[in-house]
């Protein structure tokens, strides 16, 4: 019989009393509301609050700027989605390079180690500036010159270094017995990775990779320094024109709408993964 992992509690014979059933929820909801009330009271009673409110929380300004910020946010999400796919593949290749042993693979292994060390060691912002302004300035024929392209390449390069290390930890976590079994069946080094190690490694690291995906979702905004008209850039343009910062709040809300569900999904997947592992060890 296949166990589903999340068993239901057996129904208790005794009916839960009102106090046991609802009181905890009532207490948590009212305490949260209380905290919010106290904080908002403190903020709104500040001397400068009316000025801040007009500058940051001007609903009319938000409505005014919203179409542009939303359009910019679409660019954020498009860059994010494309980068995710490229990172997932490129990082896996880097991790495989790093794992291969044998003299013929030494150049690949060294390349991977140097790549990961360099790109993890540099701030993403610096990379975005270097790639986004540096490479187009070379004016090399055949290379695209758009800053959006090179900015994305910078983000992909940087995040791939992290993701490669995540993949590698996942591969190392696969039990040695699996490698012994693969070898004893006659599988080559590559076949062992392809059929035995990598499928298990990927399952191991999905929660960590999702975490990186959430981080990337926000970091795409770094491309605004290159003049890419993403949500943050659009908000800044509006701010420069009107001296009203509400556009930034509008952009912030959009980011939260995108990141919070993904963060929840990550939590959910992590929890399921933990349950799976626990089940395996018992």
């Amino acid at each position: 019989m296949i166990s589903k992992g999340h068993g239901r509690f057996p129904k208790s014979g005794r009916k839960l009393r009102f106090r046991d059933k609802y009181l905890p929820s009532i207490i948590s909801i009212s305490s949260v509301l209380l905290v919010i009330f106290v904080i908002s009271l403190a903020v709104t009673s500040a001397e400068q609050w009316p000025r801040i409110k007009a500058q940051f929380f001007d609903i009319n300004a938000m409505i005014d700027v919203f179409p542009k910020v939303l359009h910019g946010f679409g660019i954020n999400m498009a860059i994010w989605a494309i980068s995710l796919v490229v990172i997932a593949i490129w990082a896996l290749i880097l991790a495989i390079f790093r794992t291969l042993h044998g003299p013929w693979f030494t150049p690949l292994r060294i390349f991977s180690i140097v790549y990961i060390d360099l790109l993890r060691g540099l701030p993403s912002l610096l990379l975005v500036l270097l790639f986004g302004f540096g490479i187009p300035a070379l004016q090399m024929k055949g290379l695209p010159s758009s800053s959006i392209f090179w900015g994305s390449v910078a983000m992909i390069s940087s995040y791939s270094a992290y993701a490669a290390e995540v993949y590698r930890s996942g591969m190392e976590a696969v039990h040695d017995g699996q490698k012994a079994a693969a070898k004893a069946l006659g599988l080559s080094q590559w076949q062992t990775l392809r059929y035995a190690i990598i499928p298990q490694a990927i399952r191991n690291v999905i929660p960590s990779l999702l975490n990186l995906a959430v981080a990337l979702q926000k970091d795409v905004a770094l491309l605004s320094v290159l003049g890419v008209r993403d949500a943050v850039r659009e908000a800044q343009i509006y701010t420069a024109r009107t001296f009203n910062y509400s556009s930034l709040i509008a952009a912030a809300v959009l980011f939260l709408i995108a990141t919070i569900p993904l963060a929840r999904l990550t939590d959910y997947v992590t929890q399921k993964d933990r349950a799976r592992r626990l089940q395996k060890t018992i």
Partner: protein
Amino acid sequence: MQKIEIEHLTKYYGSKLVLNDVSLNIADHEVVSLIGASGSGKSTLLRCVNDLVPFDNGVIKLDGLSIHDEKFSRHDLYKRLGIVFQSYNLFPHMTVLENITLAPCKVHKRPKNESVEYALELLGLFDLDGFSNAYPEQLSGGQQQRVAIIRAMANKPDVLLLDEITAALDPELIGGVLSIIKNLREKGMTMLIVTHEMGFARDVSDRICFLDGGQIIEEAPPAKLFSNPENPRTKQFLQRIIESGRL
């Protein structure tokens, strides 16, 4: 005709000597068991035979040819030597059928339908009909170990190496696994077995080797070794086994 010849095998783990000049021959269709206390080197010896563990000195020959000879391709060596591990080591992300057909299809390039057919035949033979699409975690330990034996058999090996295949099983599941091995013996399979199941070793083996401190210190047919051991260390070991009620 000797199937496997182990000559003067020496193996260190770091500075610790685990196999000390071990020599052992196994004839075609012969079943040899290695017994001895934990740490006596039996599992290491077994894993040296199919090159899972490198050794420092000596030669291991399969059909008269060193396993490190250039004429042996990796495919060839592992096609002829199957191994079953204590902890099954099935691939958890593959179904039973995928586990069994992986090596025949990908390593030995046999046609898929032929591999599947043979796998299903073996599953039927080992009382595992209907489990071909199950995943290993859905099976009991005994069933998983039987799948692991089938996986090793699917390459049609000449020799089967069994590394304490019942050590991780619940007592009531051991019998099913051992009866398969007895069945394979009747079919003439050459086997080298590492085991703690003395009764099984006695029933299934043509010859039993007692290892102690990295050496084979006594080698005899089971009837002789269990009833009338010569070496005092063997006597002591068997005495303890009998006292603990395992023989």
